[in-house]
């Protein structure tokens, strides 16, 4: 069974928000749109977003580090938002595991957004229906696009390749390999929602240097018993001339 998902690499995310703007740009004019903004150019601007980048400071000065943290729908394998929906508008696709909202069925009761511990769903104040990340379902299967472009807009926009799109149930996919080999983890595992999206932690490249890495034990130049050859000594090369 396929479970499409995003892998987000916190090691390389620089918090540029290109994924946020590309998501909004693609989806507001696509199948999931419009993602209406209010007061966009005045006080208290607000609007619908499927993806936001947050920033966290880890540690205490001077030992701090800033982590940029993009958050969108995690397409849980046990989505708590789906069974609570009274109309069946909220559903998880069997064929690829994407959690979607049918905007023609949604009554806008907000119950699914209460049921999501991640706050991944937002009501669209214009259409009065619940909206969320669709994993760009309207472009990943679009055969009119070249195959390399059949990816969510955020993945294509990321300048540091911090977002990887793939099937996390296919053990040979790049996404699965990253989860397996680079320490991929899920958010709030305590609720048993089993999110499909995984995050890759900060990974530091460190070299542990020992003394003998710098000073080779068998380094002939350091050998105390080593005597420099004198000019009178015959060398192999010299002897060949004799």
């Amino acid at each position: 069974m396929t479970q499409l998902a995003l892998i987000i690499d916190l090691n390389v995310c620089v918090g540029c928000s290109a994924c946020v703007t590309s998501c909004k740009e693609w989806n507001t004019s696509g199948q999931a749109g419009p993602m209406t903004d209010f007061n966009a150019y005045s006080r208290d601007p607000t609007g619908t977003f499927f993806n936001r980048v947050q920033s966290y400071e880890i540690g205490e000065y001077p030992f701090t580090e800033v982590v940029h943290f993009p958050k969108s729908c995690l397409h849980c394998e046990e989505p708590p938002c789906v069974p609570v929906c009274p109309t069946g508008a909220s559903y998880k696709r069997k064929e690829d595991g994407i959690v979607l909202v049918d905007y023609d069925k949604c009554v806008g009761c907000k119950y699914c957004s209460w049921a999501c511990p991640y706050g991944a769903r937002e009501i669209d104040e214009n259409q009065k229906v619940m909206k969320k990340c669709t994993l760009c379902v309207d472009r990943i299967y679009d055969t009119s696009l070249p195959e390399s472009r059949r990816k969510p807009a955020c993945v294509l926009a990321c300048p540091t390749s911090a977002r990887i799109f793939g099937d996390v149930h296919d053990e040979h996919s790049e996404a699965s390999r990253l989860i397996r080999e680079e320490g991929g983890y899920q958010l709030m595992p305590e609720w048993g929602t089993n999110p499909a999206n995984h995050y890759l932690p900060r990974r530091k490249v460190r070299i542990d240097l020992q003394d003998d890495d710098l000073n080779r034990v068998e380094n002939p130049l350091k050998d105390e018993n080593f005597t420099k050859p004198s000019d009178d000594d015959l060398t192999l090369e010299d002897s060949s001339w004799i």
Partner: protein
Amino acid sequence: MHPAFSVIFLTTLLGLSQGLFTALITAQTYASVELVKVEQSSEFYAIGTLISLVFLVSALLASFFHLGRPERAWRTVSQWKTSWLSREVIVLPSFGLVAFIYGLIHWFNLDITLVHLGPLEINLSLIVGIVAVLLSFTLFICTAMIYASMRFLQEWATPLTLVNFALLGLASGFALATAYAFKSAPSLVNMFAGWAIIFTVLAMITKVSSLIRNSLIKPKSTASSAIGIRHSKIRQIAQGAMGGSYNTREYFHGQSDGTMKAVKWGFLILVFLVPLVLITIGLLQHSYIAYILAVAVQYVGLLLERWFFFAQAKHPQNIYYQTV
């Protein structure tokens, strides 16, 4: 959570309606075994049912204000297999319908005796009434389970949520029944008032228990589990939006600790203490005003209680929205 007034009115009015109807059937059950005598019983039960239905319909109207797309409300009956909200939407009108039939039987004097058990008579209306009461209890369960079934809202995910919804509904309904019976069926006043006191005291015990329980909750989700970084010092410095978003509006009540405390003490006094005193005064002084005041004060208290119920629930998503 941000309390929505539509839901506050929905749940409190439903409680009144269900409690009052349960009171009527309690009276009829008592009357059928001749524990009490009800004068002009048909009219009493019919008008009582009408009052109960008025509250039920008001609750239903309030619920529509909660929906973004109320014209699609008919779709909400479809997912009864998984959604408690859907189940509530089915049980609510079912209760109303059976209660309405019960009211019609009394209004048009269509009651017939179905079974004679010695001196006892089991009437059709009593059977219909008991079915409606069972539906009313199912409705209490459905309404409360909407909240209690959300496991990560730890303040709600407890059987106490169900007990409180039911007991507070019954307390307010029996208080209303007391005031209603004062003019139309005086022989029932003491019985109703007695039950109103019992339910109010029980509700006070369970509500205070849930307040104590909730004050001891240790949140399962932390900033560390939310972003998956093992460190005790995590401070948010940006939340991805500067002008607020759905996430900051829907899940935060935005009130100070002082307000929360005031509301808590306010409802503890208005829902429990004042009505208990007023109903006792009513019993001792035969005072109509005291009973009416008890109902009114308790209802205002219940609005505060329900507001507090929503506001105190801390949604785990709030961890992601700590700083602009």
